[in-house]
């Protein structure tokens, strides 16, 4: 299956006349093989993400059939588990691939943050509960909560971005607003009990079901775009150098700009706990770690137990020291994220000399360095990518 048809080509192509082929090198990995392995791994990860969400859907149904604090805890754990594989795909961003291309903007519909909570359900401000806001509590605006109904409602305001759907909408419906300085939201299970103390439990259940269906729908479309026979994947595997550029671009930008600056840096800067993804569940660090591990695996061509030809093989052939340095940096970022004391909202508070903020700053530095090193690694195999500001 992994027969290397272009075994000796890379020596000629990659070395650019500067380096000879070292004779002790075992069969060199071809660029084609790396791109094919990348798309196969990504397809597998999206397929697992769909399966995760379908499994989660079953748990949601079980919860809705008998909402208790115990079953709520179970379904919350299930939500955290349901994102395990999706997080590993996030390095495949920022090259207008199937996850990003807009329209339909699957990424925005799956993972948008912040969330328009008051568009969905009751919400509090400054200790005052506004229980009549949100679609759930406004039957006049949408008598029956269906996917089509929600789409139409979003359509009327002409906005392509939908911040009332996706993973974090489900998170909000399970945990509720995180109103304390630290820790998760405290939505009671009785929010879903018919005849219980909360208004509109049936509509809340409908919204939760529709939101989960939406996630399955969007994940499925992304997965199918990476099917071996899908036109996007066929084209991706044909234009090897362009695709390698995309892959490096995604890894670099996701490392430095998105995971670093946007997701961690913005919260570090604002010191506001609500500038973090997974604010409702207070499990943001779990996401960051999964993301960082996903980046490393994408670089090395690994997925789960599978270890295929990776970008690292190409970089190593061109510049072994650079490959070693990059791998070290990728691991350093993972370690730096693990070193941030949980929960994240406590870590961002305090002054810059606090243990939490120093740990976050270290993670930011590590992610920034790894992003820049991806740029150098791409250059080492003759590709040009934009990591950030190119002349700095």
């Amino acid at each position: 299956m992994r027969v290397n048809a272009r075994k000796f080509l890379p020596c000629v192509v990659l070395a650019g006349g500067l380096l000879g082929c070292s004779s002790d090198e075992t069969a060199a990995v071809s660029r084609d093989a790396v791109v094919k392995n990348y798309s196969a791994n990504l397809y597998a990860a999206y397929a697992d993400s769909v399966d995760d969400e379908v499994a989660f859907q079953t748990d949601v149904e079980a919860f809705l059939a008998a909402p208790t604090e115990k079953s709520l805890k179970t379904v919350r754990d299930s939500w955290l588990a349901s994102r395990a594989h999706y997080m590993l795909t996030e390095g495949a961003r920022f090259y207008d691939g199937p996850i990003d291309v807009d329209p339909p903007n699957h990424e925005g519909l799956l993972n948008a943050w912040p969330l328009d909570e008051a568009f969905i359900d009751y919400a509090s401000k400054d200790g005052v509960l506004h229980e009549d806001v949100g679609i759930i509590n406004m039957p006049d605006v949408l008598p029956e909560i269906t996917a089509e109904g929600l789409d139409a409602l979003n359509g009327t305001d002409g906005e392509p971005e939908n911040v009332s759907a996706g993973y974090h909408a489900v998170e909000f419906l399970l945990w509720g607003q995180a109103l304390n300085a630290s820790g998760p939201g405290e939505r009671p299970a009785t929010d879903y009990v018919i005849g219980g103390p909360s208004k509109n439990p049936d509509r809340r259940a409908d919204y939760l079901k529709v939101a989960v269906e939406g996630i399955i729908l969007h994940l499925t479309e992304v997965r199918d775009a990476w099917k071996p026979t899908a036109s996007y994947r066929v084209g991706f595997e044909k234009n090897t150098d362009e695709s390698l550029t995309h892959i490096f671009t995604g890894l670099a930008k996701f490392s430095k700009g998105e995971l670093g600056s946007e997701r961690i840096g913005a919260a570090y800067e604002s010191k506001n706990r609500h500038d973090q993804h997974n604010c409702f569940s207070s499990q943001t660090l779990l996401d960051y770690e999964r993301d960082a591990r996903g980046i490393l695996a994408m670089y090395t061509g690994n997925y789960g137990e599978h270890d295929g030809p990776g970008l690292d093989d190409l970089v190593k052939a061109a510049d072994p020291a650079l490959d070693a340095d990059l791998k070290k940096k990728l691991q350093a970022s993972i370690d730096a994220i693990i070193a941030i004391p949980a929960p994240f909202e406590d870590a961002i508070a305090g002054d810059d000399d606090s243990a939490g903020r120093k740990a976050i700053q270290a993670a930011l530095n590590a992610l920034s360095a790894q992003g820049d090193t991806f740029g150098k690694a791409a250059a080492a195999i003759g590709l040009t990518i934009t990591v950030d500001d190119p002349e700095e």
Partner: protein
Amino acid sequence: MIRRASSILILIAASACSGGGASTSDPLPPADLKSGGLATTLDDTSQAYRNSIRALSEDQASQFSFGHSLFNRAWVTAPATTDNLDGLGPLFNARACATCHAKDGRSAPFNASGELLGMLFRLSVPGTADNGGPNPDPVYGDQLRPLGILGIPGDGTPHVTYEELPGNYADGTAFSLQKPSYSIDGWNYGEPSEGLMISPRTGPSVIGLGLLEAVPEEEILANVHPPDADGVHGVPNYVWDAERQATVLGRFGWKANQPSTLQQTAGAFVGDIGITSALFRHETCTPSMIACNRAISGADPDFELSDQAFHAVGFYMRALAVPARRAVTDQVALQGELLFTKFGCASCHKSTLHTGPSDAEALANQTIHPYTDLLLHDMGPELADDRPDFQATGRQWRTPPLWGLGLLAKVNQHSFMLHDARARGFAEAILWHGGEGTNARENFRSAAASERDALLKFLESL
């Protein structure tokens, strides 16, 4: 990298010009690739507009990064857990700055469903406001907000239809311009006042604003002059500065109706997204909009955009670098620039300005090539919005900068130009010019096809 590249260019220039003469066989000297001086980026990809200027201090770099994040984030309805990002609306045009300024550029005027999106409609009625600016409609205020948060209807729905206007170049080659007609229906708060004036405007790209802000006032005013042989004469706009509480020179916006990037930013936050700030503390609901006035505010406690966030976005708006000019040795493009000057385009689209002191190293004392004089010009009845804006008449528009425009298609996947995005590319934009731009347009229209192509190639290189 820039420094190295330019020294190579100087060598090329020196050898190219060694003949000394300007005979047609001599290659033209290369153009300056540093359109924004030190604040130039060599990025020419689809991300070309989103780079920071160089030599930021650590504090400035983190402000830039935070500002970028805020610029791209969607605001949400209050109340929300993200209490620093709530307070959308009640009425609004967009949830995020980047909705209309996608990738720090300019969004297409329509969204995927064909609805008008990257477009704003300024409203006013005859007369002037106390600050000397446009007189807002008593019910709808000074701009149309088609969207509202859940349960609060937007102002109304804008529509556009286009009529094709055929024309010919002097050599007989045909072209067609699309003439827009705008209407607004579904007014949700009753009919607007008699004499309502509507001015359609697209969100421009936000590159190089810090440089334009750092151009000393004297340098801008030095270009004010009586009509020349072509009838060209720029005039300044004088507008209200809410921070300084004074009337000052305007330099931003399609009518130069904003005095500073900070005021432009605060104005867009409150007007377009419904986010109040230290500079504009009140939502724009008018007294008769009952639900709008009752909506839950995201203010925390005084206004919705924290001062820290406001200053970060404000700095971000000043710190986006200008893409370097491309094809700097391309003889056709260089010839195109000579024609740009010869035709009279450069009378208003001034190639070179200079910046004065600034808090950011890359913005201070730079020689820049924005291709604007930042002044108002009468552009004739065809482009007129017939809506005065401070000193600007209904026929006057500010010369828009042209830098970076050659990358518009790459960054934003469209080539719509002019204040209301009616032009489908550079040629149509030129052909719409009237008033003071009439002679330049006619020079272009009557030029040989090869000259027109050269001129367009020059514009594409910006």
